[in-house]
């Protein structure tokens, strides 16, 4: 075995996109911790600043740079690591490792690959090589063909027959794949898949629709020791991407013989692949033949199975398996990669037994994906081989029913409780979606509520009757609660089955609070049991607990000084990994201050749910009941519950503040009243007015009758939104009364509560994060948005420090921020958004307050990293009673660093069919990247590279620019022409370009009138970038612009819907210049340019 490396390069997975989310922050963070345990220097590269792994106390050297061959080569050249660990950065990490090898970089600098080999990566990714390998070791694979051309695909179709599964090689989360039932679908998916695959290769495979899907997480060390960490069974049968499947662990419907057959196969595969670390193997197992028939069932001695997929790296599933078992897969995998043997490592959970063992679990785990269709109501909700979920929740309990019910609670999906049904499902003759969609789980409930038998539903859906029988038990309990008197025994049975107080109240015609007090009276309270990897066989030190209704409580309160940090739940659009970053930082800050940190969260992907992040972890739904119960448990006999921090867990945690206050539970930091003040429109307006700070005119209204005169009074365009906002959901810029009426029709359908109408001020949007201790206010930094107001701040590119603000404007922002924070009695973090519109206030600085959120924001990690101000730590210490002055921070704006950092949003639109990609007030991005450098141009360029929006000189552009933007676009057109870009344009835009004396090819935007039309020139690769701005008003997916934008997404080319973004991208083009590659610390410390690189 080669020597242990002394310096290891770890590649992160980049921005959060569908298919690659917080699980890789968890994995990368674990890897860095493992390197530290091994005494190895870790060098981490990631473009995503919202990650814990890019904290400088996690990795030794941190680069926040684009994940490209060029940038990584320069990191390698500078750092000279002796090894590269590519298996913890998702598919991105593996792909880059291959690319670095192919570019000769690894060889040139003598960097060896650890954890996996090129052969292994190749074997697992190249379908044909993989199939050959499996066949050689006698493992069954479904009949298939690897095709690189349409002709070959036709041949395969004739040989195997439809339906066929199409999987492109080397793509994330199954991008570009699908199941084809018809010839048309087959053609569309195969051509799309060939385009999506970087090597233009797709696998066409026999469809195993309706078979069971199982996953095994296995590990191997260099000595050949192999172990299984966990097996997991998908409730959804084959045909749904595992990331979109409801998953249960351990498997429930397998006998020991079935299980051992698959386990043995998985171990054989990891052995053959020679992986040193972790690996995920996915299987299809024959279903019950009386449910889904298969050939040969009568005479088969065992269930046939097929190997479907192998991931030779840690994955979303391994993160889930780690949280489901307590076994830290990524951490152990990283240590194995540097040469450790499994039997040398200790099981960190028991601290006494060996890491070379297989976890035994004594509970049931249910994972449910969190899909973005609450935001994308026009999106295609069907689930297939292409993943669509942005995140997931996990719940743990002693029965499947209770774990399932808790998982549904954890989804935090507005009003979608276990009782939810689409109103349409009540219409006679209306079909419920029993095919795979994000609503199928609820449809299964609905079906069984209507007295269909589990067997019938099983035959229709392929879902194993075991699961449906369990759901039928839940339905039976619903009926008991509806019809019987609520006795102690019935209430206890319902709680043991996972029914929340709220659901019990709804069914038993009571109130949640009444059910709660009844529980207290009858002594029906949850106990907390430990996740310990060993089913209680050994004493365990892990402070990782879940609630259940049983006899013995293991999470006994120790009475120490402690604070609860409420986490942020599943990753969703508008509430991303940034809030997990803050929660983790908060836990660490508490510990550093000598206070025990308790964490509550429901998301298995995250660092916050790593058992060694906090002193005690509760894996619980983040709703009122879940949090109050665990606080009651922490209160113990003393009756004194610890304080709760609600500032760091995004809207999830903030929304709990009222409930906590009602229950007289203490909140650390800004009070529930301060939060209410920010959210209650009337109070907020009055406060801002009393401070004599300008805000756009507007009002809160309840009805359309109030809305129309209000809008008229403030003047169109107006910005409308519900008073409780998460990621700008249902926020729109409205141009006239007709649109306003339509908006109201939709908004009222979905929610109650007031609607806010504000004057829409077009101007520069500026955002500030500040920390207030009640006496002074520290502003770590001001960020200026590149897109003008109207684009959601989460979808905007943000620049630090501001590039356009005047001194007067800057001073006004500092002054307003300070006064608002003090007046609102903020204790901790506050985020304030401003619009700078000088024309709207000619006699003043022109700075208007739009929104105040007395909580941690999405930009806290970004700003903490570029300024070096430990914002979360300062805020936590403030909550613990230590003033900013005592912490050594003076009031006002923190001196600006000698760097420029640009945060750019990243979208997952390729995964979401039928979703419009234009930028507007509703947030659509799933993640972010950061470009940091010494000049604005270089920082923007890096942000664009990292977010896949880079435009190269000479790139042919398609322009389709709305009437009102044409004048403004002229400068852009000239710049493009000057940079050598051939121009294509739709009718009106072409006329404008010609009028400027610049050559242009006109293409029609009428899709029905001849070719080539706009979509053709995108699809055939004639143009490689698009600028498409919208006619005013609400863009509808019916417009032609929609097809242009979707075509651009499908072709994976930049599509700018804001002239501001386009200007930034083209500006970077005209001023190319070199960019730096340096550790983050160096930028911050302002080292002179050019050193080292």
């Amino acid at each position, binding site marked *: 075995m080669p020597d242990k490396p002394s310096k290891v390069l770890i590649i992160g997975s980049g921005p959060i996109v569908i298919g690659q989310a917080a699980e890789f922050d968890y994995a990368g963070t674990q890897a860095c911790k493992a390197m530290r345990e091994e005494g190895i220097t870790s060098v981490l590269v990631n473009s995503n600043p919202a990650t814990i792994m890019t904290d400088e106390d996690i990795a030794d050297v941190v680069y926040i740079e684009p994940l490209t061959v060029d940038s990584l080569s320069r990191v390698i050249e500078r750092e000279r690591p002796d090894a590269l660990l590519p298996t913890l950065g998702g598919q991105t990490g593996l792909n880059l490792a291959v690319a670095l090898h192919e570019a000769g970089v690894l060889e040139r600098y003598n960097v060896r690959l650890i954890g996996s080999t090129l052969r292994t990566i190749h074997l697992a990714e190249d379908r044909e090589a993989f199939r050959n390998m499996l066949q050689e070791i006698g493992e069954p694979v479904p009949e298939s063909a690897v095709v690189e051309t349409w002709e070959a695909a036709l041949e395969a179709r004739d040989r195997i027959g439809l339906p066929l599964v199409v999987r492109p090689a080397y793509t994330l989360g199954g991008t570009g794949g699908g199941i084809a039932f018809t010839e048309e679908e087959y053609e569309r998916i195969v051509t799309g898949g060939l385009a999506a695959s970087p090597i233009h290769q797709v696998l066409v495979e026999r469809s195993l629709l309706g078979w069971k899907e199982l996953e095994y997480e296995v590990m191997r060390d260099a*000595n*050949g*020791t192999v*172990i*299984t960490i966990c097996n997991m069974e998908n409730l959804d049968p084959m045909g749904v991407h595992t990331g979109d499947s409801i998953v249960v662990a*351990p*498997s*429930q*419907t397998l*006998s*020991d*013989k079935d299980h*051992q057959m698959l*386990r*043995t196969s998985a*171990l054989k595969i990891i052995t053959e692949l020679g992986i040193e670390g972790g690996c995920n193997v996915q299987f299809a197992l024959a279903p*019950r*033949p*009386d449910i889904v028939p298969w050939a040969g*069932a009568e005479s088969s*001695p065992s*269930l046939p199975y097929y190997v479907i997929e192998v991931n030779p790296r840690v994955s979303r599933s391994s993160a889930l398996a780690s949280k489901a078992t307590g076994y830290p897969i990524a951490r152990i995998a990283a240590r194995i990669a540097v040469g450790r043997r499994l*039997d040398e490592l200790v099981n960190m959970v028991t601290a*006494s*037994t*060996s890491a*070379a*063992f*297989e*976890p*035994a*679990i*004594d*509970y*049931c785990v249910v994972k449910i994906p969190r899909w973005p269709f609450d935001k994308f109501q026009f999106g295609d909700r069907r689930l297939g081989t292409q993943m669509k979920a942005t995140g997931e929740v996990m719940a743990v309990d*002693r*029965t*499947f029913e209770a774990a399932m019910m808790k998982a549904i609670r954890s989804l935090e999906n507005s009003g979608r409780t276990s009782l939810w049904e689409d109103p349409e499902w009540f219409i006679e003759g209306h079909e419920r979606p029993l095919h795979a969609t994000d609503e199928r789980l609820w449809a299964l409930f609905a079906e069984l509520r209507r007295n269909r*038998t589990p067997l019938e539903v099983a035959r229709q859906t392929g879902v*194993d*009757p*075991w699961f449906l*029988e*369990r759901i*039928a*038990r839940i339905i*039976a*309990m619903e009926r*008991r609660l509806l019809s019987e008197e609520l006795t102690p025994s019935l209430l206890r*049975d319902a709680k043991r089955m996972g029914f929340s107080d709220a659901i019990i109240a709804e069914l038993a015609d009571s109130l949640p609070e009444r059910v709660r007090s009844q529980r207290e009276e009858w002594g029906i309270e949850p106990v907390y*049991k430990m996740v310990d990897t060993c*089913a*209680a*066989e*050994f*004493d365990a030190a892990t402070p990782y607990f879940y609630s259940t209704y*049983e*006899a*013995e409580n*293991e999470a006994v309160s120790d009475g120490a000084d402690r604070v609860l940090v409420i986490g942020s739940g599943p990753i969703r659009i508008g509430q991303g990994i940034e809030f997990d970053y803050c929660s983790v930082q908060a836990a660490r800050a508490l510990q550093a201050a000598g206070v025990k940190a308790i964490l509550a969260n429901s998301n298995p992907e995250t660092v916050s749910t790593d058992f060694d992040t906090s002193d005690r972890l509760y894996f619980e739904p983040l709703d009122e009941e879940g949090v109050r119960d665990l606080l009651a448990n922490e209160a113990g006999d003393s009756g004194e519950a610890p304080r709760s921090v609600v500032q760091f867990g995004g809207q999830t945690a903030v929304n709990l503040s009222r409930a906590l206050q009602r229950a007289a539970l203490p909140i650390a930091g800004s009070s529930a009243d301060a939060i209410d003040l920010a959210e209650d429109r009337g109070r907020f307006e009055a406060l801002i007015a009393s401070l004599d700070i300008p805000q756009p005119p507007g009002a809160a209204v309840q009805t359309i009758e109030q809305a129309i005169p209000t809008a008229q009074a403030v003047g169109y365009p107006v910005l409308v939104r519900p008073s409780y906002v998460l990621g700008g959901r249902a926020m729109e810029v409205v141009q006239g009364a007709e649109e306003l009426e339509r908006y109201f029709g939709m908004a009222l359908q979905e929610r109650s509560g007031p609607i806010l109408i504000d004057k829409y001020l077009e101007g520069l949007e500026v955002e500030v994060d500040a920390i207030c201790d009640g006496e002074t206010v520290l502003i770590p930094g001001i960020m200026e948005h590149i897109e003008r107001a109207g684009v959601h701040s989460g979808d905007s590119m943000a620049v630090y420090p501001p590039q356009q603000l005047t001194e007067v404007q800057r001073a006004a922002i500092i002054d307003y921020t300070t006064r608002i924070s003090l007046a609102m009695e903020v204790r901790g973090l506050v985020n304030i958004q401003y619009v700078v519109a000088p024309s709207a206030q000619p006699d003043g600085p022109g700075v208007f307050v739009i929104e105040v959120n007395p909580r941690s924001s999405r930009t806290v990690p970004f700003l903490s990293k570029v300024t070096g101000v430990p914002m979360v730590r300062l805020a936590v210490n403030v909550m613990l009673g230590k003033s900013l002055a005592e912490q050594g921070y003076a009031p006002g704006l923190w001196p600006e660093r000698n760097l420029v950092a640009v945060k750019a949003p990243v979208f997952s639109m390729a995964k979401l069919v039928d979703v419009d990609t234009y930028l507007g007030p509703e947030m659509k991005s799933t993640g972010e990247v950061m470009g940091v450098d010494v000049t604005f141009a270089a920082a923007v360029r890096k942000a664009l590279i990292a977010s896949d929006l880079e435009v190269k000189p000479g790139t042919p552009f398609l322009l389709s620019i709305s009437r009102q933007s044409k004048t403004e676009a002229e400068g852009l057109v000239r710049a493009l022409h000057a940079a050598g870009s051939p121009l294509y344009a739709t009718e009106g835009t072409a006329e404008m370009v010609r009028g400027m004396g610049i050559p242009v090819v006109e293409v029609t935007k009428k899709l029905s009138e001849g070719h080539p039309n706009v979509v053709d020139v995108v699809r055939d690769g004639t143009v490689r970038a698009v600028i498409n701005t919208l006619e005013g008003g609400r863009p509808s997916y019916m417009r032609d612009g929609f097809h242009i934008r979707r075509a651009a997404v499908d072709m994976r080319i930049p599509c700018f819907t804001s002239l501001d973004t386009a200007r930034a991208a083209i500006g970077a083009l005209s001023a190319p210049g070199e960019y730096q590659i340096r550790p983050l610390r160096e930028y911050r410390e302002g080292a002179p340019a050019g050193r080292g690189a």
Partner: protein
Amino acid sequence: MSDGLLNGRRPPARLVLADGSVFEGVGIGADVRTSGEVVFNTSMMGYQEALTDPSYAGQILTMTYPIQGNYGTNSGDVESSQLQVQGFIVREATDLPSHWQSTATLDEYLRAAGIAGLAEVDTRALTRKLRTHGVLMGTITRDETPAQALARLRSEPDYGSKDYVAAVSTSTAFDFEDPAISLPDDGPRPHVVVLDLGVKRNILRHLRRRGCTVTAVPHDTDAETILGLNPDGVLISPGPGDPMLLDHVVSTTRGLVGRTPIMGICLGHQVLGRLFGAATYKLKFGHRGANHPVRDELTGRVYITSQNHGYAVDGDRLSGPMQVAQIHLNDGTVEGLQHREEPVFSIQYHSEASPGPHDTEFLFDRFLQSVKERGHHAS
């Protein structure tokens, strides 16, 4: 069936432990009182194999995995001709199994065999009790008060004082056949005699599948009788209870060493340990599960093994040619012995699995390899 809320219709029942602690639940299986040593198993699957494993004779078994009975019961997953446990304790016994081979629910299965069970128990609390206190005698009862049950339990014999081997061993020698097993087409047909101390069927199946002629003989068969069968090798099987009660088997084994290759499994391993001078001792709560890591001291390879034992060999007192070849990674207990000169080895775990991982099935091949090297008699 799909209302599924059967627990309300099940009678209250309880487990009373010898230290007076009580675990309330509902009765499943047969309506009988039953007593035994209460032990826990952490395997997440394989309850039917465990229920029929003779090594559980005299014991009340609790499974740490809370949902039991998921895939029902069938005629293939049995390890002996009957249920062997004294009782069965679970968090949840499902009446809604789903599996293509299932023919009866767990409850029905227990009831048909006359075995008492207990469900809706906080089995994790019970496991923690056994882990901290060590295994305890206990009794399952429906109709007695805890005090009555405790008094009765105290009048009953302790697990360790009883010889269960005589009860579970075959009373007469028999040749093992299994029509479901297709023998290898050609090759030798070595004759393996299995000294049945409570053998699991899968051991016999493994030998048969490898082409052996398999004869199982009663536990009290003497060495000369065994050698009179002309064996090419002898396997000393697992079984229940305290190995210190098995002097007769130790002396039988003494007569076999040096005259035929020997493989010992579990109780058979403990017998070999005793033969070579080691004492055996009772573990606090035993090793029962499918996740036990064992390291081969020669290769450093770790194998995940299936285990079910309450006693262990004390390696320190081992003398002469027998040496410790494998150890348990968690507690360092002896997991395998290897004779320096003779083809004699033993393992504390169950290479036949069933339930559990198949990782050490190759030990049957290793045994048969030594048989082959010795040269076999029959053809």
